[in-house]
Structures are given as structure tokens and as C-alpha cells.
């Protein structure tokens, strides 16, 4: 157990070092932070022309999407691309030869990159909260702690979900397309297209039970102080449930998957 943790730490460090080796790429990645802000801009137009939808004012939207921009960098989806590339290129064999489960190898690789991105984006975010009056998070110590845990849970769910879809790469060449479909559908339920409160009621109710909200909407809603204690507890329960489910599914699908890879060859 301790050795696995040490291995993950070592791999993460290497991934982080690699990420910092290419400043241009980092910058480009950081620039993509503006995508959520595009959606926000249109919402601000809605507020300006027909009043706050469901009571969401301009500062509400700004706080929401600023936090969402940060969480945008915490997606585990690189796992899909890396896995797909490795299997196609034959480099997957190298992963199999190491005495560390490939799940951890890919997760560590992603985590390394994420940490570097967050290292750059988070200070900008914090500075923005201090400078811009619209970004009011009013965090109490308890809420801050809950937010941090929610963010960790968001990443964990995102990574396990992505890894599970990546496993399909043992059978299909279309995992990247599958993932985009999954993500696209999920974007309505995660709070990405719009804050869930602003979505039609049926969508909001359904989304509360889905894993997508755990990866983005839940931590952001928590951070902007929109959830009661009961709702927070519920959100955590749903998130942990999905984490458990994805983990179990991964373990179940892994064995036949790797067997298939060994039968058919890299």
C-alpha cells in the first residue's frame, strides 16, 4: 500500500515536471479558461435584457462561472486520450510491464498536469476574488473545508469515470468519441451549460442524482453558498456513491479487459 502511494507520488512528480517543460502548452491550456466565461457573458446579457432568471443576478453568475473556470481545470479526461494513444501506438505494453496498476499510472500522469495548471490558475483566481467586488464567496471555515473536500471528490469521480470509459479501449477504438458524447450529455447535468438552478425543474431533479454534478456543479454551488447543510450532505452522499460504483465497475471490467488485450496482442 505504502509502495503504491510512493509510486504514485513519483509518477505525479515526473508528470508535473514534464508539464512545466513546455511553457507554451501551459499558456495555451490556461487560455482555455475563458470558455466558461463565454457562457457567462451570454447569461449576463440575459440578466441585462430580461432581469435575473430565477433570481440569479449578474454577480451571482460571475461568482459561479469564475469558480467553474477553476474546476474546469480539474477534469480527469486526459486519461482517455493518453490511454487511447498508448493502445494504438503499442506503448500500452510498457504500462503493463510496470509493477504498478495502469490505473494509478494514468491517474498520476493526469494529476501531475492538473497540479501544475492549478498552481498557475489558482493564484489568479484568488487575486481576482480579492480585487473584484462581484466575486463574493463569503466562505466560513466550515464551508471552506467542505468545498475543499468537494473539490477532491470532484476530481476523484472525474478520474474514475474517465478511467472506466478508457477501459473500453480494450474493446473499442472509439473511446474518445464515446467520451465526448458522455461529456456532452453530462454538460447539461453538471452545471456547465448553465447553473442547475436555472435549468428546467425536471433536469435539475435528475441532475442531482448523476455523477456529473459532483464533478463541477456541486463544489461550485457549495462554494457560492447556495446549499443548505442537508443539501450538502446529500450531494456528498451521491458523489461518494458514484465514486464507489465507478471503482467497483472498474475492478470488474479490468480483468476481462486486460485478458482480451493479452489474447489479441498490443
Amino acid at each position: 500500500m505504502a509502495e503504491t502511494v510512493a509510486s504514485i507520488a513519483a509518477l505525479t512528480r515526473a508528470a508535473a515536471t514534464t508539464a512545466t517543460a513546455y511553457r507554451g502548452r501551459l499558456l495555451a491550456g490556461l487560455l482555455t479558461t475563458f470558455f466558461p466565461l463565454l457562457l457567462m457573458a451570454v447569461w449576463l446579457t440575459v440578466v441585462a435584457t430580461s432581469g435575473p432568471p430565477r433570481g440569479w443576478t449578474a454577480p451571482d453568475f460571475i461568482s459561479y462561472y469564475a469558480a467553474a473556470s477553476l474546476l474546469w481545470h480539474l477534469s480527469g479526461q486526459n486519461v482517455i486520450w493518453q490511454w487511447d494513444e498508448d493502445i494504438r501506438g503499442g506503448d500500452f505494453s510498457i504500462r503493463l510491464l510496470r509493477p504498478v496498476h495502469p490505473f494509478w499510472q494514468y491517474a498520476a500522469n493526469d494529476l501531475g498536469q492538473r497540479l501544475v495548471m492549478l498552481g498557475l490558475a489558482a493564484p489568479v483566481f484568488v487575486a481576482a476574488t480579492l480585487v473584484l467586488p462581484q466575486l463574493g464567496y463569503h466562505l466560513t471555515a466550515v464551508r471552506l473545508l467542505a468545498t475543499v473536500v468537494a473539490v477532491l471528490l470532484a476530481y476523484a469521480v472525474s478520474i474514475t469515470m474517465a478511467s472506466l470509459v478508457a477501459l473500453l479501449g480494450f474493446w473499442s477504438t472509439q473511446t474518445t468519441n464515446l467520451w465526448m458524447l458522455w461529456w456532452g450529455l453530462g454538460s447539461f447535468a453538471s452545471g456547465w451549460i448553465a447553473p442547475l438552478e436555472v435549468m428546467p425543474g425536471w433536469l435539475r431533479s435528475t441532475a442531482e442524482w448523476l455523477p456529473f454534478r459532483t464533478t463541477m456543479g456541486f463544489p461550485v454551488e457549495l462554494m457560492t453558498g447556495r446549499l443548505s447543510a442537508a443539501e450538502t450532505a446529500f450531494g456528498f452522499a451521491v458523489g461518494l456513491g458514484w465514486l464507489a460504483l465507478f471503482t467497483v465497475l472498474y475492478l470488474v471490467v479490468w480483468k476481462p479487459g486486460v485478458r482480451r488485450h493479452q489474447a489479441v496482442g498490443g
Partner: protein
Amino acid sequence: MNGTRRWADHVRIILICWRATVAAEFQYQANFLAGLTLSIFWMVWAAAGLAVYFQFTGDLLGWTYPELLVVTGLFFTVNGIRQAVLQPNLQQITEYVRLGTLDFLLTKPADTQLLVTLRRLNVGNLLDPGLGLIFIVVGFVLSDAPVGWNLLTFLLLFATSLLALYALMVLLMAMAVHLIGGTELQQIAYGAVELARFPVQLYRDPFQAVLTVVPVVLLTTLPAEALLGRLSPYWLVAGPAITAVSLVVSRLAWLRVLRAYSGASA
């Protein structure tokens, strides 16, 4: 006991292989079908995403839902061409520089700019412009826009849009030769086109002003306005003029970079 176990393994493995074969059969078809499905999906996704805003309002700063569909259709067209033409060739040019193929191309009697920008084509991505056209037509029909000169001005501004994209491409190519950094430049192209998902008015000032100067407005907003019969005379002239200037500027940049390149390798 051992014998039966081996036999069962044997059977299982053969079944896996047979299933693998059948699946592999579909590979090429799978890629095509997956691409088509995903393209259709993203269009539906965009249409649904737009609809969310329209829960609260009948129009966004004068843009009704069908009119925004026209913009979305244009976005898909431009994006599709970006993926079919800009992306593969931009990717190639860094290879050309690294492998010295650019030298080889420079000796050919054809214009290097044309050779380098249009050599490769990702045919699969040409689905998107086709599908985009559907949205443009549907949006146009539903929007009660008149049929008359606006069709001609639309064609003019549509051509302008594509040429503006081409000018951007040439500029990025020149930067690629000069800087040899492919991925970041792809992100610039991607980001620029993403900004054109909505008409610039929706971003409101100050962003609207910025995007009018940096000619994102050319890509989708102007052709849409032209089709809907509300293009101002100013933009009818300014649009094509800006594009013409961009083409000249980007060509000059390209020639300059080539001269420096040849000088450098001499």
C-alpha cells in the same frame, strides 16, 4: 481437472478473438459512423444549449432563437472547415520544418503558401459544414427573414468569412515556421472560432468591441446578419475590406518568414 480448465480457457479465448474480429470488421465503418453521430450530436447539443437561455426571454438583444440557429449553423460550417483544412495542415507544417520537407516544397514550381496550406484534407470533418447548412436553412426559414438581395450579400459575406479563416491560417502557419510550436497555435485557431459560436452582440461591450476589432465578427456574425437581411451598409463594405487586408497582411508575413527561413538554413 487441469485439462477441463485449459479447455474452458481455450474456448473463452477463442470467443474473445471471434468477438474481436467482428468488432474489428467495423473499425473503418465505426470511425465514419462515430464521426457522423458525434457531429449530429454536437449540433443538437448546441441547439439545446441555446434553448436554455430562451426559457427566460423571447430574444437576446434582437436575436431570436431561429436567428441564433443560423449563427450556430455558420459556426459549424466554419469549425468544420477549420478541422478539415486548418488543423491538419497546421499540424503538418511543424513536421515539415523539423524534417526539412519545407525545403523540398520550396523548390517546387508551385506557390509554397498554397501547397502548404491546402495539401492535406481531413475529409471526415467535411460532414460538419454539410450539417451546418441544415441549421442555416432551418433557422432562416423559421426566422421570417425576407428572400431577396440578402441571399447575395450572404454569399458574399460567407465567402468573406472563409477567406478570413484562411488568412488566419496563413498567419498561424507563418508563426509555426518562425516559432515551431504547433499545439499552442492550434489552440488559438480553436479559441478564435469558438468565440464565433455566438453573435458578437451577445458579449456586449467591452468584449463586443474587442471582437469586432479582432475580426471574429467576420466569421459568423456578419454572414448571419447578411442572410437575415440586417447587415448594415458599413459592414457590407468593411467586412470584405478587412478580409482583403488580412489576406494581404498574412501573405506578406508568410513571405517574410520564408525569406528568413531560407536565409537561416543556407
